[in-house]
């Protein structure tokens, strides 16, 4: 018998962890001499009360959906892919090469091509750590960390020495051609009378991210491969006994994970900056960890958590604009979410389990 009902595991524990994180964030805001309630109000006003605010929130959420899914697919195979950042960087390179060197007739074809390029580059960047973990036993966390730094060095080299247009000063590629411009929410939803999502970077990639959620759900819970990945994550020896190859599952799970992380760059590189820049990922690869932990590795949970973090990101930008609270507040909140939902999970879980068992005894 389970120690507690399923809803407690899925809803109650994340909620309590989130409240703990919010409580400590409020303390931090108090400690630096600001008013947490006023700060929250400013964040809600800036991120959710205007359509442009939503445009930014959903733009950030798109990134976090991809990286959150990436982390959660690997988590299902009990692999901690901390290399989403590097995979997304290389994914950006794939997007840039697709957009710069292929003459696309229309954006709809270009987004497909760029997605394939991003997924391919991201997956390849995850393949080496996956292979080393499966075949040589080197720990995937350490290798993916190292690969983040190597990816940053490669991107730096490529941008400075190869892709930078002649005479340009900043390390960035040339601007992508007009044909690959992705429709933004402003292009899609504004009417003659009212302009919606004015100037916001949210674009059609958001729907691609929603499709990715559906894809991951189908894959994990409706296919044999997904079952094998989850079985492997539950018990490696059990999976081995059932004829599931650990090498195959490790490599495939990491390839999917890397591809998803890489696809984040369709949103940032093609949808927003429209050229490859040095720091396009902006730590979104790491936020994927918090998003996956909060979303309990389920695509629907990841979607909700990604929107929450999108809100925090946009709200944090508003705070930095109007108050003296720097944007780094979001990093602190992110750290607290990872701490309480991930590392200190047992701190919340164990008392709750005891509570539920005690309640059950009383009822029996």
């Amino acid at each position, binding site marked *: 018998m389970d120690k507690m009902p399923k809803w407690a595991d899925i809803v109650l524990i994340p909620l309590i962890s989130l409240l703990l994180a919010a409580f400590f964030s409020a303390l*931090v805001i108090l*400690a*630096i*001499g600001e008013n947490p309630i006023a700060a929250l109000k400013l964040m809600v006003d800036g991120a959710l009360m205007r359509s442009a605010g939503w445009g930014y929130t959903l733009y950030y959420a798109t990134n976090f959906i991809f990286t959150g899914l990436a982390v959660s697919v690997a988590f299902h195979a009990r692999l*901690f892919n*901390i290399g989403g950042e590097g995979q997304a960087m290389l994914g950006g390179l794939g997007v840039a090469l697709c957009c710069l060197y292929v003459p696309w007739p229309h954006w709809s074809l270009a987004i497909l091509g760029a997605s394939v390029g991003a997924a391919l580059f991201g997956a390849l960047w995850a393949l*080496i750590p996956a292979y*080393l973990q499966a075949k*040589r*036993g*080197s*720990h995937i*966390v*350490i*290798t993916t*960390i*190292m*690969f983040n*730094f*190597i990816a940053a*060095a*490669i991107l*730096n*080299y490529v941008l*400075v*020495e190869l892709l930078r247009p002649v005479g340009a000063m900043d390390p960035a590629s040339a601007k992508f051609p007009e044909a690959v411009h992705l429709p933004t929410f402003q292009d899609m939803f504004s009417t003659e009378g009212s302009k919606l999502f004015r100037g916001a970077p949210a674009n059609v990639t958001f729907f691609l991210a929603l499709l990715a959620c559906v894809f991951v759900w189908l894959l994990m819970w409706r296919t044999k491969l997904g079952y094998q990945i989850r079985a492997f994550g539950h018990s490696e020896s059990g999976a081995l006994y059932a004829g599931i190859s650990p090498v195959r599952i490790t490599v495939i799970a990491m390839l999917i994970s890397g591809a998803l992380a890489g696809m984040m760059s369709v949103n940032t590189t093609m949808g927003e900056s429209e050229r490859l820049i040095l720091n396009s990922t902006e730590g979104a690869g*790491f936020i994927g*960890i918090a998003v996956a*932990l909060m979303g309990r590795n389920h695509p629907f949970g990841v979607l909700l958590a990604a929107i929450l973090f999108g809100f925090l990101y946009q709200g944090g930008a508003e705070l930095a604009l109007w108050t*003296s*609270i*720097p944007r*780094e*507040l*979001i*990093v*602190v*909140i*992110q*750290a*607290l979410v*990872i*701490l309480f939902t*991930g*590392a*200190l*999970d*047992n*701190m919340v879980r*164990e008392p709750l389990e005891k509570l539920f068992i005690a309640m059950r005894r009383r009822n029996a």
Partner: protein
Amino acid sequence: MDFLTLLQVLDTSVRLATPLLLACLAGLYSERSGVVDIGLEGKMLAAAFFSAAVAFYSGNAWVGLLAGVGASVALAVIHGLASVTFRGNQLISGVAINFLAAGMTVLVAQSWFRQGGRTPPLEGDARFNPIELPFAIGPTDAAAADRPLSQLIAEAGPLQQFYSELISGHSSLVYLALLTVPFTWWLLFRTRFGLRLRAVGENPAAVDTAGVSVVWLRYAAVLICGVLCGVAGAYLSSALQAGFVKDMTAGRGFIALAALIFAKWRPVYALWACLLFGLFQALELRPDIIENVSGLKVQVQLLGALPYILTVVILAGFVGKAIPPKASAEPYIKER
């Protein structure tokens, strides 16, 4: 390349290797006890800020060092709570600590100093100043002779050059870090505490059966790790540089982790690994030297990535296999 240039590069290597060495030894204690720590970076960063901030207010670098160690130990306690007491995922805890430090330092720096996430520059006794060893040519000789120091050293004999340029003239923390290496070796391999610490990282159940507390040993290791990371951070902001800037650790915690794997979790090898990675960082600053010596144009990006590439190669076991302590990253659960 002449002898003096070589000495200068090695001198810079030692300076840059010191924070790596301290953080690497910090990780060594923790990981030898079975607690994986990828939060070295965050602990160093927190210590770098708080030591610089307190050194600025107090005007005393040692008081700053204490504050830095305090901040680092506070984060180490969080890591201990998560990974020992609540048997959580040590890797996730490390990630959280890194972000916590990255965010909090800027937040507090902005709130205290309002200079865009930095501390004001440190001067005089608020910094760890170079120590002039006896018989070495240093700034006082230069002042007495009223000539530039570089001129005096250039005129000296090779032995004196070696002594004055490379051995003398570092801050006290550099010598402290170097002394920590033999001390760590002695503590881990020649004392009862060290034997137990290593045993708890290999087979905690056996240590528990012998009646020694696994929890206490792991906490001790995590706390030592916190202290050493604190010294590393203080060195960064108040000896290597004069003040804190946002994200000033710049991946050093991860290079230290790489050095730890490169050294296969052994203290003396850790020294060599950190000096090697320090040399890479020194050459990254002076790419012209490699070009003059080898005639090849070496990409600075390659030099920067070299520690990480080497670590992956070592981890993959292509050149000598690196095998971590057996119980690393595994929480110990009593009475299963």
